[in-house]
Structure formats: C-alpha cells, structure tokens
C-alpha cells in the first residue's frame, strides 16, 4: 500500500507548509466547520431569547450583536468558502485529472488570508460589540459607535482570500485539465465551482471597495455616502447588493454541483440533460449579476428599476428550475440506493423548490412590499442557505467522507440525523414564513405578544436541528478512528475522483488518469469495458505483483 496524502508526512510542519490542494482543502474544512459551530451556537442563543416577546436573558443591545455575529460568521466565514474552498479544493484537481491547482502557493496563501480575516472579524465582532447586522447599511454603520472598523477590515481580508481561490480555480479549470478531458466531459461539480469562481472574482472586488469606502468613512470621516454632504445611502445599498446578491449564487451553485454528483452516483444514472445543467450553471453565474435590485424594492428606487430588476430575477429562477427537473429526472430508470447523501438530496429537492419559489414570490414587486424585511424573507433565504446549501454541504460531507478519510461513517446514524435535520429545519423555518405573513419584521428583539406561539415552535425546531447536527459531528469524529475502511470506491461511482485510491496519493493519480469512461456513464457497455480493463491490468501486473508499490 503506497502512502496517501495523509500519511506521506505526518509532521505538523508538513501540514502548515503544505502545497497539496487536498491538505489545504481539509484545513479549510476544519476552519469552516468551526465557523459553522460558532454561528450555529449564536443562532441557538437567539432562538432561545426569542421564546418570549420581551427580554428573556439578554438586552436588545446584546441581541443586536448576536444577530450581527450570526450573520457575518455564517455568510462570510462559513457559507461562501464552505463548499468551494473545502470540497472544491479537494475535488477539483481530482475531477479534472490534475496533480494540483494551478498556483499551489497562492492556494496556501488564501488559506492563511482566510484565517487572519476570520480572526480579525471574530475578535472585532466580539470585543468591538458590532451591532450593524451583516449588511452594514449606512448611515447607521457610519454613525455607529461600536467597532465596525475591524469587522469591515476582517471581511475585506476574507474577500481577498475568496478572490484568490476563485482565480486559482478558474485558471486550474482552463489550463490544468488532463489532455483527454474536454469541457463538456467535466463533472458537473467542476462546472459549478467554475461558475462560482467567476462570480467570486468579479463581484467580490466591488464589495471590497464598498467596505473600504465605509472603513475610510469611519476612520477619516470622508462621508462618501453621507446625505449631509451630498452622498446617497441608497448607492451604498446598490453596491452592497451588487456583490451580495451574486454571493447567494456563490453559496448555492457549488451546492447544486454536489447534488448533481450525488444524484447520479446513488441512482447509477447518467445525469439527465448534462448540457442543460451546464448552461443553467453559466446562466445563473451571469444573469445573477443583473438582479440585485430586488433587495431594494422598498428602498426608494424608481418604478422602472423595480420592474427591470423584478423581471431579471424571474430569468434567474428559470435556470434553477431547469436544474430541479433534471435532478428529479435523473432518478428515472436508475438503480437507486438510499444512502445518507441521497436522503439529503431528497431533502434538498423539496426545500430548494420551496425556497426558490418563495424567492420568485418575494421578487414579485408588489408582494415584496409586504414581505421585505420581515421573517418571510428570513425564512426564504434560510430555505435556500440552510435547506439548500447546508443540506448539500452535509450530503457532500457524507458522500466524500470515505474519499477524504478512507473510512466509512455509520449509515444508520447518518440516515437518522439526516431525517432530524430535515424535520428540525421545517419546524424552525415554516413558522417563520407565517410570522412574516403576520408582519414580524426581521432583527426584532421585542415583538407583539400575539406572535409568540409561532416563535416557540420555531425555537423548538432549532433545537431539533441543532441536536441532529451535533449527532452528525459526533459520529463523524468517531468514524475518523473507528469507521470501517472504505476502499477506493465504496459507492461504485463512475465519477473521476473515485478512480484513484481513498485517501488519494499525494499526486492524486498513479500514472495517467483513466478518463475513457464518462463521469456519468453507467451503461452496460461501459461496465463491461471497465471489467475487461480490470482483468487486463490484473493480468499485466501478475508477473511482478510488487511493481509500483512502495
């Protein structure tokens, strides 16, 4: 047995100073996981506080800080880097038959930039008691006495980490593909990471600039958005959402890629309409840039703008809808085995349709006048971010756990906790839709007593969801050591990352990556060819069985 990327060098320094995309991916995963844990604990604290219409155990000031912490950590420290930086880093080169990403040193640099940014952000949030919300709207954030500056600075730093990772992936996809791998043969996960990277590279600098302007305002009192000096706070919102709406697609596109992979693997079926999914991915990445104004229907933009942004939002929705149909259709005439990742896929399908359609609803101009800034919007984007991205993230964690660690997780516990996540999630966020209908504005510490029953339900759901996630954390840690040894390809998947050992060797593939069979090819002919080749190579190896082994 040759050494895997995990065992090749076991010193701490070899991790800190690694260039291996797999190790960098694993370290990103650990850091993101810590961010998720932290953000999740803050969410539980908030939900507990909201059990009563008046203060239960914290003041309004503390509550406002908490939702800022929850938002900033979940958006910038977890959601945006989670799937691309952790799984993208690990899987992308494997899936295109490359030995590494194009710029390994830059890749390691993005990890450390992320770490520094995360520390600055969290310290700024906690010590500085920032209470602006993750949107930093001016003039509130410009006038606010709390320490907004370090948080802006931290998010600015993380932004550069995102840009560099995106840049690295774009170049990797363009220039590092194995010779025999054409664009339209790439695994769909690669396509979604590619789409996400384009958004990261083109949208993040606008956010960086906006935050920089806000920071300079704080520091030197330049007041570029200050209405007293002729500035316009609504322009800030435009710039902010020019980034932050595409950022939603940064978060959801890789999740869609994970779903494509899992659906195909666990139904042993070609991905229905591969090309449609590819073009939908590219479409989302591009049209996603043109719909930011739907966050601002009530902010005093012109009627024309509202109409135009509303219409563009409808176009984005079509691409997502096409994807949902193809995933569902992929199951047709498959050979389906219900493993934990597939159960998460089912949860995703239901929640994402619901979340996406309520997105169309809030992008419908007149309806948004009631829902904007209420719990309806909160529930909608949690359906996309948690019901969509987090669910897909958990699918990815289970799907690739054997690939990354070489061990299996306990399947029954997996199925149990996936069900817990699904029902806990519904119990948390369905009441929030209803609260939004009732008129509960978001970021409210106090609320009218009539809203209490729905809040209690929502809090109960949050505890179910939290417990299921802790259960997952527990058995995954347990499996690291005691899990069954997985073997190279426990899911019998056709996708490229499974065509090497699990965990993979330091340079990913021994020899030329075997890409003759398509990533989603489960036809009888393909299987027979595969079997024939296996026999051949066994025969070839037979005279000297030790060849190629260290």
């Amino acid at each position, binding site marked *: 047995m040759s050494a895997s990327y995990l065992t090749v060098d076991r010193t701490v320094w070899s991790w800190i100073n690694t260039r291996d995309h797999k190790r960098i991916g694993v370290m990103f995963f650990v850091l993101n996981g810590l961010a998720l844990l932290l953000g999740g604990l803050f969410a539980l604290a908030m939900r507990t506080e909201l059990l009563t219409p008046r203060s239960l155990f914290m003041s309004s000031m503390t509550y406002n800080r908490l939702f800022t912490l929850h938002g900033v950590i979940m958006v910038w420290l977890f959601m945006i880097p989670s799937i691309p930086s952790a799984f993208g880093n690990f899987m992308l080169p494997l899936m295109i038959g490359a030995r590494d990403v194009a710029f390994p040193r830059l890749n390691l640099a993005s990890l450390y930039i992320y770490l520094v940014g995360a520390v600055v952000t969290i310290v700024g949030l906690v010590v500085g008691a920032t209470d602006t919300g993750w949107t930093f709207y001016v003039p509130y954030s410009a006038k606010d006495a709390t320490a907004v500056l370090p948080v802006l600075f931290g998010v600015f730093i993380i932004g550069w980490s995102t840009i560099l990772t995106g840049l690295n992936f774009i170049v990797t996809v363009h220039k590092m593909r194995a010779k025999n791998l054409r664009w339209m043969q790439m695994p769909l996960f690669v396509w979604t990471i590619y789409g996400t990277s384009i958004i990261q590279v083109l949208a993040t600098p606008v956010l960086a600039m906006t935050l920089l302007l806000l920071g300079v305002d704080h520091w030197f009192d330049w007041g570029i958005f200050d209405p007293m000096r002729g500035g316009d706070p609504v322009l800030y919102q435009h710039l902010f959402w020019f980034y932050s709406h595409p950022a939603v697609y940064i978060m959801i596109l890789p999740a869609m890629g994970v779903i494509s992979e899992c659906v195909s693997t666990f139904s042993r079926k070609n991905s229905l309409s591969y090309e449609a999914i590819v073009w939908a991915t590219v479409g989302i990445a591009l049209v996603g840039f043109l719909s930011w104004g739907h966050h601002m229907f009530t902010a005093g933009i012109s009627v024309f703008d509202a109409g135009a942004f509303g219409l563009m939002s409808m176009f984005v929705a079509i691409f997502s809808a096409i994807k949902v149909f193809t995933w569902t259709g992929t199951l047709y005439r498959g050979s389906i085995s219900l493993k934990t990742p597939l159960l998460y896929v089912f949860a995703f399908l239901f929640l994402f*349709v619901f979340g996406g359609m309520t997105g169309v609803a809030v992008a419908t101009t007149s309806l948004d*006048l009631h829902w904007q800034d209420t719990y309806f919007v909160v529930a909608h984007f949690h359906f996309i971010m948690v019901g969509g991205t987090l669910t897909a993230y958990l699918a990815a964690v289970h799907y690739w756990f054997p690939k990354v660690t070489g061990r299996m997780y306990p399947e029954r516990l997996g199925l149990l906790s996936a069900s817990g996540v699904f029902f806990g999630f519904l119990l948390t966020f369905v009441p929030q839709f209803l609260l939004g209908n009732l008129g509960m504005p978001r970021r409210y510490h106090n609320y009218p007593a009539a809203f209490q029953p729905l809040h209690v339900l929502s809090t109960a759901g949050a505890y179910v969801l939290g417990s299921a996630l802790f259960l997952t954390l527990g058995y995954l840690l347990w499996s690291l050591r005691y899990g069954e040894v997985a073997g190279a390809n426990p899911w019998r998947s056709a996708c490229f990352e499974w065509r090497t050992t699990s965990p993979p060797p330091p340079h990913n593939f021994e020899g030329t990556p075997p890409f003759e069979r398509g990533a989603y090819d489960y036809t009888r002919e393909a299987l027979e060819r595969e079997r024939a080749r296996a026999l051949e190579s066994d025969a070839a190896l037979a005279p000297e069985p030790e060849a190629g082994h260290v």
Partner: protein
Amino acid sequence: MQELLRRMLFLPPEATSVARSIDRLHFFVISVTFAGAFAVGAVAFAFLVRYRARGEDEATPEVIVPRRLEIGVGLGLLALFVFWWFIGFRQYVAIETAPPGSLEVYVTAKQWMWKFSRADGERSAGVLVVPKDKSIRLLLTSRDVVHSFFVPAFRIKQDALPGRYTSLWFKADRAGTYPVYCAEYCGVDHSRMWASVVVLDAPDYERYLAGQTPDRVTHAGAQPELANDGIVGAREVTNMVDEGRAAASRYGCFSCHTVDGQRHIGPTWQGLYASTVPLASGKTVVASEDYLTRSMMDPHDDVVAGYSPIMPTYQGALPQPDAAAIVEFIKSLRYDEASPPVPLPSVIAVAPVLPAVKGAPLNPNPLTPSNPSEGSQR
C-alpha cells in the same frame, strides 16, 4: 376561500383594497409553490420506490431528454413567472402612484419613533389618525438613519431615508387600529419603534377634528408597547402652512422670492406648485414636493430659465421639518385653490428678513452642522 387561505397563512385582515388584490396574487403564487414542492417531492419518492437498486453494480440505460422538451419546459415556466411579474408590477405601479387629491401627511422617522404632521396642521407622534375611505399620501423622511414604515394590514412598506423624500399611499376601507413597525434595522430600540394608524369612520373623524378624542385613539396611544418615549399619542395642532411661512421668513427666503406673482431675484412662489417650470438647460420640470425640496438643497441643478444660479444651498442648514413646512406653504399658494388660506398682502409685509439679523444663523455650509451635538457624534 380567500378568507380561509388568509387565516391559514396567518395574514392579518386586509384593510385596503390594494391589500386584497396583493393577497390574491400571494395565494396564487403560494399555491403553485406548494404544488411544485410537493410534486417534485412525490415524483422523487415514486422513483425511489419504483427504481430502487436490486443488486450491486447494476447497469442503467442512458436516458436523453429531447432538446425541444427542455426548452419547452423552460419557456413554459418562464411564461408563468413573467405572468406573475406582470401582475405584480402593475400592482406595484398602482401602489407607487398616489391618486390626485390625497390627504398628505409628512412622516418623520427618527431613532426610535414616528412623527406625523399633516398639511391641515394636525401633528402627532406614534399615532396617525386618518379618515376611512380617503386616500392618504405619506411623504417619508428620516432625521438620522434608514428606517422603514411598515403596515402589515395594508401590505405596504417604504423606507424613510435621510436627506430625501419617499412616498407611499393607502386608502383604508375598514375602521380600526393598525400597527406600524419599523422594518429596517436602525439600532438598539429598532424592535420597539412602533406606531399605530387609527382609521376612523366619518362621524368619529368629524368628532376628532372637532377636538374630541375618540376611545380608539386614546387606546392606541396607551398601548404599553408604544409608551416608548412618553410622548406617544400627544397631539399638537398647529398650522403647517403658518409654520412654513414663519420658517421661510426665518431663513431669508423672502429676500429673493415673492408670493404674489412678482418677479424678484428668484422665481415667485405663487402658483409654483404643480406648475411646469422651464429650466435654463432647456428642459422642463414639474414642481413637485421633490423638486421644491431639491431646489432648496441643491439650487444649482435645474436653475429656472431666466434666473442666475446665485441661491446658496440649504443642505444641512435647513432641518427636514422646516423644509417640509416651507414646501407645504408653497403648496398653499396654488392658483387653483378656491380660497387661498394665506392672505397674500400680509405675507409681503413680513417678508424681507435677513438671516444675519435674526437669531437663527443661516448656515449654508453643509459641513459644519448647525447643531453642534450632531457634529461631535463622529
């Protein structure tokens, strides 16, 4: 049916016809959402049962969807979404365009309360009293950060921005007390920045105008949630037009503008409101509230044809309520008013008061706020 859905979805009772039409679209969209999510879930589940794996390493046929079907499904859905957009946008345009003859109310938001002042002089904080079946147009602005005026029962919401006016209108057809929430995060007490809109029947409203306070109004003001600053429900009646005239005189407006139609250093205010004004740039503009406010804050854009750009800016010098009052005063000088509320000659008598003489300093410099405490906040 509509009522049943409304209750199932926990929507508050609709108090305007706009709210009812929005809800109809809402129910349509939500029903399709439910149907879509459950259909996808059911089909996926059916496939799971029907095509479950019967052995290891099974081969499956390669299914390819005809391109025409893909495009057809996409376009079909797009048609549905664009149809929603069309209905929604028509409603939105209607909501954004106030009918002529609406009763106008200036709404000033500040951390953390709502203040209302009406053209007819009625002023209050926390409680807005309006008659039933009359269109009310709200002109919103903020004195500090961004707030948002949200009345769930009317299904409407509009941000209040510092340094700008936004507007919103409604016509309530059910008497009642309707809560108002601030929907845009604005600081520590954001979640207590509440108010009420009290809609009164005609007889109640008559009594209210006559100086009585109907129970409903007292009750709205006494809600514990609203007793935020102790001034909620306090009602002052002043004449906004009079106040505007006083402010205009205080800020020296009459040294250049007349109110009797005579040409002076600046254009006359008589008949200015809602008239079409020719500009030096060759364009024309309708003198709306927004135009009038803009002209005070930035006189050098949109200079009226035939006048020199010599007016100083009042950006930062003229507080929002005063600006609103001056606009209201200008509006009272319309030609089409049957009986102008302001006797014109007497106004001329008080007119040219120079700012330097008066105690309130004119401060055209936008950078040093006239209120020193505001300056030291940073």
